[in-house]
């Protein structure tokens, strides 16, 4: 079995601030789970702990029944602020994950080219990050994460730094991507509409103390035409319901 992620009793404090308390959650294989919640509920912290970039104070994370001790080839991260190397062109940036894994240059460049095309950036291989728009930069980050062929893809508010129109397009593209790649996606967002639009299941996190308040599984949305989802009654119902329960936590 590949790509099952289990979080068990994770605690994380930053000084006096309790970011995560006794957090337990399962992420089913091959599905997209959203972590949705207002700021301060620890969702990015949780994501980075799963990625192995941060260590929990106690508790453990299991990926395929292996305890997570640090970053690994089974997980890939997409950063909110893109984290691209400003001095490298798109091709090198996308191939960077493979470069760090010591893959030979010709091989990693051809893999990178494939994914550059897959995210719709063909022709921009020699461009530099400062020449790209926000949306294009994020696609580079996504292509980089896809290139290393990890079973679990972790996305930290990947669409928050782009404009609304681009964001909508990305959400539609994401649905496409999920159908093609059989990976487990874990997706952090603070947008309710976004979460309901793309997810197989939504974990609603609340702050102080950080906890999972409920897990929602939209049943039929995946089978619908992406163009029509946003007007579907089930979609609208779920969005309203979530907003209602989160309203009290808006600062």
């Amino acid at each position: 079995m590949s790509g099952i992620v289990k979080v068990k009793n994770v605690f994380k404090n930053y000084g006096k601030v309790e970011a995560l308390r006794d957090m337990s959650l399962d992420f089913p294989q091959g599905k997209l789970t959203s972590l949705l919640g207002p700021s301060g509920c620890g969702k990015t912290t949780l994501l980075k702990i799963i990625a192995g970039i941060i260590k929990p104070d106690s508790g453990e994370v299991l990926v395929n029944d292996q305890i997570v001790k640090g970053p690994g080839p089974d997980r890939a991260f997409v950063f909110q602020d893109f984290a691209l190397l400003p001095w490298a062109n798109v091709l090198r940036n996308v191939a960077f994950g493979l470069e760090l894994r010591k893959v030979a240059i010709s091989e990693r460049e051809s893999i990178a080219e494939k994914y550059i095309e897959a995210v719709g950036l063909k022709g921009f291989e020699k461009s530099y990050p400062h020449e790209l728009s926000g949306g294009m930069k994020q696609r580079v980050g996504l292509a980089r994460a896809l290139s290393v062929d990890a079973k679990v893809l972790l996305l930290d508010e990947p669409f928050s730094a782009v404009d609304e129109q681009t964001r909508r397009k990305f959400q539609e593209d994401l649905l496409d991507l999920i159908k093609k790649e059989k990976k487990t996606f874990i997706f952090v967002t603070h947008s309710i509409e976004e979460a309901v639009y793309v997810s197989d299941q939504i974990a609603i996190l609340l702050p102080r103390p950080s906890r999972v308040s409920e897990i929602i599984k939209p049943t039929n949305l995946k089978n619908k035409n992406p163009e029509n989802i946003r007007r579907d009654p089930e979609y609208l119902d779920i969005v309203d319901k979530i907003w209602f329960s989160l309203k009290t936590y808006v600062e």
Partner: protein
Amino acid sequence: MNRSLILKLFSIIFVLGAWEIGGRIPISFAFPTFFDSIVAFFNLILDGTMFKAYAETLKPLIVGVLISAVIGISIGVLIGLSDKIDWLISPIFIVMQAAPLAALIPLLILAYGIGLTSKVFVVCIMAMPVIVLNTASSVKSVSSSLKEMCRSFLGTKVDEIFKIILPASAPIIFAGLRLGISAGFIGAILSELKITPTGIGDIITYSRSIADYPSMYAAIFSIILLAVLFLNFLEVIELKLFKGSNTKHVND
């Protein structure tokens, strides 16, 4: 020809003209005219004195700058990477940065005599603080997002230093080098005027002693010309190499 260029030329001609007139009045017996100085300048070049002199002057400068660059950047990187080393070593360079290091020159003369060694030392103490501090501050401010990204894709600590930290800090390190060279230049000239008369410093002191003011001014003019041309050249390279990255506040 646009207006800005015309104004620049005008201002240069105006100043040189004032120099010429001032020399003719004369403002002081020690103030030669612009033309006399230029003639002396070309004489020095033509009879080879200028080149021999600079060969002497540039020796401690180049050696000193190279040493300062290698040691300075290494120390700066270490400081940037380690809190403990930062605590131990930064204060020394912070004090050196604000202090008039030239005051140490007499001491160095006492300790190391009047040869190449003390001149190299002078260049080093003038150049190193700014190189170290700039390197350290740019290493410290490398975006943590980039470092996390490197780790998340299984980069080792070595990968992190050579593929992320050094390339990201390169613009400011280079700017620090440029300032270091500028400070080193001052050190080289000072050591020549104060320690042993060799090189271009010798031309200055000797000409002054025999009241050959045009040559003295010519020598000074050549120093300034060289320094300005070289440092501007470095700035141009810096802009070309690092366009697209933002060189934020560079420490003076």
